[in-house]
C-alpha cells in the first residue's frame, strides 16, 4: 500500500511527515541535552526526602567547596575557625 503524503498548507514544499520528523528530532535532541532537568534538587528538597530516597540519588559532581565563605556563627565560649584556611 502506497503511503499517502499531504502537502503542508502553510509551508509549500514541506510534507507533514518531514515536518513531524524534524520536530521529533529536535525534541529528542533537547531531551538528551537536558537529562538533569528532571532532578532539580536543592538542599531544601533533599532535606524533605526520606533516607531511602537519598540513598538512591546519584551525585552529578564530585568534590567539595574548599574555599567557600564562612557564614555560620562561632560556637559560644570557644575559639573557632571561621573559614576554610588552616591557620
Amino acid at each position, binding site marked *: 500500500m502506497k503511503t499517502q503524503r499531504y502537502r503542508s498548507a502553510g509551508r509549500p514544499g514541506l510534507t507533514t511527515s518531514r515536518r513531524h520528523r524534524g520536530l521529533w528530532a529536535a525534541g529528542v535532541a533537547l531531551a538528551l541535552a537536558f537529562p538533569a532537568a528532571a532532578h532539580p534538587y536543592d538542599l531544601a528538597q*533533599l532535606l524533605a526526602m526520606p*533516607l531511602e530516597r537519598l540513598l538512591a540519588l*546519584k551525585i552529578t*559532581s564530585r568534590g567539595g567547596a574548599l574555599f567557600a565563605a564562612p*557564614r555560620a556563627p562561632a560556637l559560644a565560649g570557644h575559639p*573557632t575557625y571561621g573559614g576554610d584556611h588552616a591557620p
Partner: protein
Amino acid sequence: MRRSALLLTALLVMATSALAPRAWGDELPEYRLKAAFLYNFALFTDWSASVGSTLNLCVYGRNPFGAEIDGLDGKAVGERHIAVHRITDLEALTACQLVFIADAANGSLPRVLASLRGVAVLTVADSAGAADQGVVLNMSVVSNRITFEANLAAAREAKLSLSSKLLRLATKVLQ
C-alpha cells in the same frame, strides 16, 4: 527544506550539549547530598536528655560543604534545632553533638577521636576506613551514590542510640 531542518537540529544538539555539562554538574553536587545525609543522621540518633534545645553540628577542619552546610542551620531535629559551626580547635569539639571530621584522611582522626572519647558526640566522616578507626558513621561514594557504614561499638561508647532503621540502611555495621 529537509536539509535546513537537519541543520537546525544539528545546531540545537551542539548548542544544548555545550550547556548540558554545566547544568548537569550543578544539579546534585556530592556535598549537597552529604549535607542531607548529615541531617538524616541527626534525625536517627538519640542523644541523652542532658543535651539542651540546640544541637551543635560542627564541621572540623576544612569545610568541604561550602555554604550548603548553612542550609541545616535552624533545622528541627525533634524538639531541638541545629546550629552549624566551623571548628578548628579540638577542645571546642566537646561542646558539639554532631561532628563532621573533614580531614579524617589527613591524619587528624586519631587526635579528634581521642579528644571525644566518652563524650556524647556523633562522629561522622567520609574517609576510607574511618569507621574501623572509631568514627560512628562513615560515608562513601559507590557508583555515584552515597552509602554509609556504622560503628555500633563507637556509638555505644559515646552513649548514643542509633535507630534500627539507620542501621538497616547501612552497608556495614561494626559491632
